[in-house]
Structure formats: C-alpha cells, structure tokens
C-alpha cells in the first residue's frame, strides 16, 4: 500500500518497521523519581531542576552529533523551561491544588496550541518544541522510562510514530535507523532539521500511517518523493537495495571522481575551527570558504593579531593538510559590525563592503593579514581570498600591502568573483591571482539587480538564470586559459542536481555547507564528464531559466534546503 506525505530528509531505505505508539507511559519500575510524599510545588521544582540538567546534556550531545548551530534548537527548550508564561502558569495551577503532572500537561498543550495557531509556518512549528519540553517534565514527574523503543540487537529498522520530538530524533543511531516516517511533523520542524543533519531519510505528515503500520512489516521510504510504501513488492524491495559498490551514506573520504575519471574537489564552507573538524569528518576535501567575520563577533574588542593567529592556526590544523581558504573580513552590505561603528549607507550592497572596507581601514586589515601570514608559516595548506574585488587595481593594492608585511609569495592570494565587473575581467584577474572562487549568491543578485533579502523579489532571484550560467561559463573559460584554478562557493554548488552542470561548465572545486558534502560527492560519482559537457552546452544556449530547470529535471520553484 502506498502512502504519501512530505519528504523532509532525502534518501531511500527499505527495512522492517518498528512502530512507536503513544501510550500512557508506565510508571518506572523503581517508582517515581520525585518524592510523592512532598507537596506538588516541591516535586515540580525537582522535576524542573532535573529537566534543566537533562537539557544541558542534550545540548552537549547535539553539539557533537549535529553541530553547534543546530544544537541551538535545544537551547529553545532550555529557554522555555524558565519562561514566565510557561513555568509561571504551571506554578499557579499547582499552588491552586492541581497535580503537577496535569498542570504541566495542560499548560504545555495550551501554549503549544496558541503557538500552533500563529500564521507563520516557522513559528507555528515551534509548538512541537513546547510539547517536547512538556513531555520531558511529565516523564520526570512520573519517573517513566525514556519513551523511545529499545532497538538493541536490531541492525536495520524504519521507525514509524505519530511524531518524534527533536530529542528523540537526536538519539537515533543512523547505523540502525534507516528511515523515519511520522503522521505529524513539518518540513520546518526541529525534528526534520535533526534528521537532515543525521542523514536519516524521513517522510512526515503521512495520514493514516498508524492505522496501517504493524511491527515487523517491510516498508520502503523515499525521503525525496515523500512516499511510504507498506509491504512493497519484491521488485520494489530490490530497487531500494543498495546497488553493488554503492556506498552512499557511508562517509566518502576519498576524492569524488566521475564515472569517466574526472576528479572534482568537494570542499566545505566553515566559520569556526569546530566547523572545520566537522567538515573533515563529513568527508570534505578541504575548506573552500572560511568566513573570518565570526571571529569579530561576540567580543567587545576586536581580536588582536595573536588571538586571530591562534584561531586561524586551530582551523588550519583541523583541516589536517587539506587546503583551507580564509576569506578576509567581509562586512558591509547586509553584514554590520556594531563594534566598528560603520556609517549607515543608502545602498549597503553597493557600498563599503568586503575588500573596500578592508582597504579603507588598513589598520584592521594589516592585523588580519599579519595573523594570516604568521599562520601560513606553519601551515602550508593556508590560502587567502579577497571578497568584493571589482578591479585588478584592488588586487594589486592588497598585494602591495602584503609586501610591506612579509613575503607575498608565501601566501596564495585568491579572488572571490562576485561582482559582474570582476567576472567580466576574470582573465586579467586570473593572470595575477593564485585562484578564483565564484560567490554565486552575490554574483546572481548583482547580475540580476535583485536584492536577495527582499521577499517580494524572491521569484526573480534565480541562480539558474541563463545570464548567470553564461557568466559562470565565461569565468571558467578565462580562468582555465590562464591555468588558474577556479571554484564555486555559493549555495548553487550544494544543489546535487546542478552539480553536473557546474562540472560541465569547467568547475572542479565546489565548496558547499558541510551536510551537503556527501550528496555532492555522490552526484559527482554518478555522472560522466561527457554528459556534463553536453548538458552545459545546452544550458548555456537556453533563453529562459525555466528551460534550464527543465533540462536539469527540476520543477520550477523547488529548492532544496538544509535547514
């Protein structure tokens, strides 16, 4: 029987089901954790204190499993725990004589319903976080065991449930749980984000699932199509079996090679040494874009040379011999740094951004360059990239500045191509630069004259506009003619279905967000250069974006997101 829902985490799997049914969790054999002899308020305080400790541990676990930025998901629950609108309401009910369990359950449900009714999909999805928190505290009050099934001894299962909390999802072992399917859930839920980070295929919003699902039933889940097939035919089961030699979902640490032998370097974007470690663990061939802005955030003073050098060295060390490209401070535009007291500009995207800022504040820029040069002495894998270069002269100015500080040949100086002027002059820039890297996000918005942060223009911002593709083609041709390596570090590079086109256009270095690395490597290993070249030729000849999308087998408007 075929059921359909919403695919929220891509991938396919076929395995026996384990069905989790919401039951009143039985009391823990060892009895309730809290002392029933005490009054309600005392028990509540105890349960809340334990929940706090549990959540701190969950946040720690999330940091290692899904990374710092996604660990913040659980910070939301931590903040809810002492929210006056939640705990205040629970306390007053308990003071009025309610059981703490009932008070927590009622208040959590009331608040969750209020949040679920909000018009914005992202905000309404937060109701699940409130329910997760409520369940946690009720469980602690009851002393019930952790609700998730015992999977010891299982080797491959698909989990079916009404819904999973983000905490449940975080505890899943991707080696055992091959897919997850739920009746409730939404693409924007924190549970879905955790699934994507763990790489577990998932389909949510499957109506009628629990009426049909039985333990042990074979099920085929397709997280891309958003389908869940119960008791599929043998032919379907075979089609879900991994192809011989297919190693998708196992971390592919070696280089990605096309079927006809072309190597494509799949690198990752990062903003901290921890990101670099994670990217390397996820199989990245290096760091194609290290954003140094983050170092300048969150502190009250600008980091000095020693502090910057310390962080750069830690990141370069974490790259473990793989190339790591540090982009110099890229602020201005929509990125402000309050510490610097920048002027508000009428057109910040056309204002003092990137290298323009750095060249106007050489006092700051010199500190950063010195820190990078110092790091390069110890780490030969270090490269430096300049953002917002518009002319050859700007590159020369930076080279001159570097010369006054040290040996310009000691560090590979590359240029980010994101301004149409630089794209047009790519041949001249490529003659001087050690490498080029195309920032497709900004290049697209400048070329199409579309502010990508303006919601009313979303339909006009399209990286597959033929004008963008022609510009990408000409940059690649110019760079390759000068024998200068050229890569892409925008979001476009992380879209697996677009990868053959980019390789066909001449790009051999793709830098993507760490969770996209394996998908992009998989895409490379499934294609041939010959087909890619033909595809690129046809795409560049298209006169409209919709034709390009059709060529790539994309339905218009559908974009993958990775949370």
């Amino acid at each position, binding site marked *: 029987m075929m059921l359909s829902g919403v695919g929220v985490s891509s991938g396919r799997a076929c395995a026996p089901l384990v069905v989790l049914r919401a039951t009143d969790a039985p009391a823990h054999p060892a009895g309730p954790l809290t002392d029933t002899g005490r009054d309600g308020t005392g028990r509540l305080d105890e349960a809340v204190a334990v929940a706090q400790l549990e959540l701190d541990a969950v946040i720690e676990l999330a940091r290692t499993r899904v990374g710092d930025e996604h660990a913040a*998901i659980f*910070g*939301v629950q931590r*903040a809810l725990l002492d929210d006056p609108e939640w705990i205040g309401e629970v306390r007053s009910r308990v003071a009025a004589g309610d059981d703490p369990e009932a008070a927590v359950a009622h208040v959590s449900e009331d608040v969750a319903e209020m949040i679920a009714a909000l018009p914005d999909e*992202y905000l309404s999805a937060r109701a699940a*976080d409130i329910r997760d928190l409520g369940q946690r505290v009720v469980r602690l009050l009851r002393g019930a065991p952790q609700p998730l099934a015992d999977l010891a001894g299982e080797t491959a299962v698909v989990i079916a449930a009404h819904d999973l909390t983000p905490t449940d999802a975080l505890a899943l072992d991707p080696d055992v749980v091959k897919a997850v399917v739920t009746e409730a859930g939404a693409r924007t839920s924190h549970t879905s984000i955790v699934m994507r980070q763990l790489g577990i295929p998932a389909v949510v919003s499957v109506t009628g699932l629990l009426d049909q699902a039985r333990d042990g039933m074979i099920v085929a889940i397709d997280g891309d199509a958003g389908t869940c097939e119960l008791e599929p035919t043998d032919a379907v089961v075979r089609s879900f079996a991994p192809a011989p030699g297919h190693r998708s979902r196992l971390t592919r640490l070696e280089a990605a090679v096309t079927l006809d032998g072309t190597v494509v370097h799949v690198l990752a974007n990062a903003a901290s040494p921890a990101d670099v470690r994670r990217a390397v663990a996820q199989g990245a061939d290096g760091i194609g874009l290290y954003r140094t802005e983050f170092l300048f955030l*969150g502190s009250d003073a600008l980091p000095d040379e020693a502090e910057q050098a310390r962080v750069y060295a830690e990141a370069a060390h974490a790259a473990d011999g793989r190339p790591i490209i540090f982009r110099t401070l890229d602020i201005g535009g*929509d990125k402000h740094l309050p510490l610097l007291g920048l002027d508000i500009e009428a057109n910040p995207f056309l204002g003092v951004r990137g290298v323009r800022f750095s060249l106007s504040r050489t006092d700051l820029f010199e500190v950063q360059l010195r820190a990078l040069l110092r790091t390069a002495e110890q780490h030969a894998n270090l490269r430096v990239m300049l953002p917002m270069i518009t002319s050859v002269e700007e590159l020369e100015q930076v080279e001159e500045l570097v010369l006054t500080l040290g040996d310009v040949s000691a560090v590979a100086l590359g240029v980010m191509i994101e301004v149409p002027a630089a794209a047009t002059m790519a041949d001249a820039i490529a003659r001087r630069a050690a490498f080029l890297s195309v920032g497709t996000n900004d290049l697209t918005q400048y070329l199409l004259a579309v502010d990508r942060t303006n919601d009313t223009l979303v339909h006009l911002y399209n990286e597959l506009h033929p004008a963008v593709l022609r510009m990408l083609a000409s940059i690649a041709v110019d760079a390759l003619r000068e024998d200068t390596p050229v890569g892409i570090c925008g979001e476009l590079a992380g879209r697996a279905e677009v990868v053959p086109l980019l390789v066909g256009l001449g790009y051999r270095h793709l830098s993507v*967000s760490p969770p996209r690395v394996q998908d992009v490597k998989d895409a490379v290993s499934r294609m041939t250069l010959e087909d890619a070249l033909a595809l690129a030729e046809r795409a560049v000849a298209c006169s409209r974006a919709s034709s390009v999308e059709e060529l790539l087998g994309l339905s218009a408007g559908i974009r993958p997101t990775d949370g």
Partner: protein
Amino acid sequence: MSEIRTLTVRNSSGLHARPAARLVEVARGFEAELVIERGEKQASCKSLIAILKLGVLEGSEITLRADGPDAVPALDRIEQLFDEFAIEQSAGGAVA
C-alpha cells in the same frame, strides 16, 4: 531610568525561535524590565513564548523599551544582537 529605541528586523526569518531564544538569554542577564513592541502588541524580552506570539518577521519595525538601572547597556546589547542575527544569516549560518 528608562530608554526607548526603534529598529527594523533585518534577518529574513525575523525573530523566530533560535534568535528569540538568544534574545531571551541576553535579556535575562539584565536587571531592567525589557519590553518589545510591535504595532499594538507587546511582549517581555524575558519570555520566549511571549516573543514568539508577537510574530516578528523580517522588515517588522519594533520598539524596545527598557526600565531599570541598566536600561541603556541592555538596549545597546540588544541592538548589537539584532545586528549579529543579520550578519550570521548573511554569512550563511543556518539560523532557521
């Protein structure tokens, strides 16, 4: 001592759960009573639920009111926080 400031939210998903949780964390570090207003609705900066209910999306004009001994540093820090949200997002951090 009280202080009032107005600003526009610039990160595209507005004040959704994670930025809101950080705002709450920061706000709780100050003694002052901190209120965020959007249109006719208002919420305590120290309550995540209240902020979520306010539904602050990108482009929303909000007013911050602070009342207490550390009103000025509190609003300085909160303004800086909104700048950080905008930077982190444009730097590609998945803030969603």
